[in-house]
């Protein structure tokens, strides 16, 4: 499976719909998936429950110091940054917002890039801000695989466009094409 060890996903405005389209198509993918979806701060999120009923894989709202398990989808809790530590466990933090966001996609992507290097896949989906672009570039710099949702398809193209402005990701894909591509990697 080309040695990939994790998939990190970032999405903002329009993201829940996009993820409900993409994630069920990735049920055959054995990698752990770490997700930052921007949501209102500090309001309990039902995202994990929503995905749990629709996906074959285990779905969990991430807890601090949780060791990464294969095939599991980890959703960042609202109001906390989600990062990966060198021992492949998850860490949460209440530090200040980055790009006006907590959780911040950049922080997840950058920490995962530091830990997984070229064995990481990062995908940035629809959103109305610029969080995630710098993190995705970091994944590319560390030799990881970078995917961006086609801005033409994204409900809010700003976030994919911000990444395209910053560097040239490996692939710009529609959600359907992204799912096919990821499944073919395995």
């Amino acid at each position, binding site marked *: 499976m080309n040695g990939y060890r994790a998939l990190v996903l970032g999405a903002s405005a329009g993201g829940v719909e996009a993820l409900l389209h993409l994630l069920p198509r990735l049920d055959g993918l054995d990698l752990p998936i770490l997700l930052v979806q921007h949501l209102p701060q500090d309001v309990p999120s039902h995202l994990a429950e929503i995905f749990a009923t629709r996906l074959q894989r285990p779905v969990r709202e991430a*807890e*601090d*110091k949780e060791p990464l398990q294969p095939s599991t989808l980890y959703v960042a809790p609202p109001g*906390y940054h989600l990062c990966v*530590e060198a021992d492949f466990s998850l860490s949460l*933090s*209440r530090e200040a917002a980055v790009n006006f966001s907590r959780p911040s996609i950049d*922080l997840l992507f950058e920490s995962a890039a*530091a830990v997984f290097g070229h064995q990481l896949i990062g995908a940035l989906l629809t959103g109305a801000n610029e969080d995630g672009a710098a993190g995705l570039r970091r994944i590319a710099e560390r030799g990881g695989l970078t995917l961006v949702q086609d801005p033409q398809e994204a409900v809010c193209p700003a976030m994919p466009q911000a990444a395209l402005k910053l560097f040239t990701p490996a692939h710009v894909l529609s959600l359907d094409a992204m799912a096919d591509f990821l499944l073919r990697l395995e």
Partner: protein
Amino acid sequence: MPQRTAEIELRLLLEAIYQKYDYDFREYALTSMKRRVQLAVQQMGTGCISGLQGRVLHDPAAFTELLQYLTIPVSEMFRDPGYFLALRQQVLPVLRTYPSLTVWVAGCSTGEEAYSLAILLREEGLLERSMIYATDINPHSLERARRGIYPLEQVSGYTRNYQEAGGTGAFSDYYVAAYEGALFDKSLREHITFADHSLATDSVFAETQLISCRNVMIYFNKGLQNRALGLFHESLCHRGFLGLGSKETLNFSKFADRFEPVLADEKVYRKL
């Protein structure tokens, strides 16, 4: 390999801080520590982490400045109101049976949680026989905690939290607007001892019935988390209570089977 170099520099910096100032950050979770140090490098204009190390070793004032980056002073009163509601409804009825109560707020930062607990204990008629030890490693935070003055613009949020936490009075009874802030009632303060204490290097100082340590150990690595939990286990009386942050868990620690969850949603545990 700039990544690798930065990691070496970071470890050397934390070692230097420990040897020179006795503050032990060596077992903090590295990902967020790295980020906070890099922010300090930028803001303090030292160029790289090694430059910061030199500054800090030769200038205690620079260390004091750096310390504000290394600790995360974010707190609010009655933060996560459900937690305080659970303490009020499920924990205090048990603690009421003790002749006196000792509560430890570990990692109290600027004191908001200690004052919140004091208000809670007062409303439940327990404050007069309670002592709250609120500890932190950051002297600036402790100094602000002792003053008990919080920005007025925060008070509406605190008031909303207080009401959601089941507050039985009027929140405005607990402070007066003064010194361009909200000055909290001195009689609450009489039951709180703010003190310097490190979960990384110090030991247990009292037997306690309730320990609240929320969103502190998320900045620790697993080894340091286990150390802190060891202190809590030792400090708590038989069947004492431990409250954690809402996304923290004992499941991945050495102490998973030495506490039982009493309120899984609010992360309140009881010593076995």
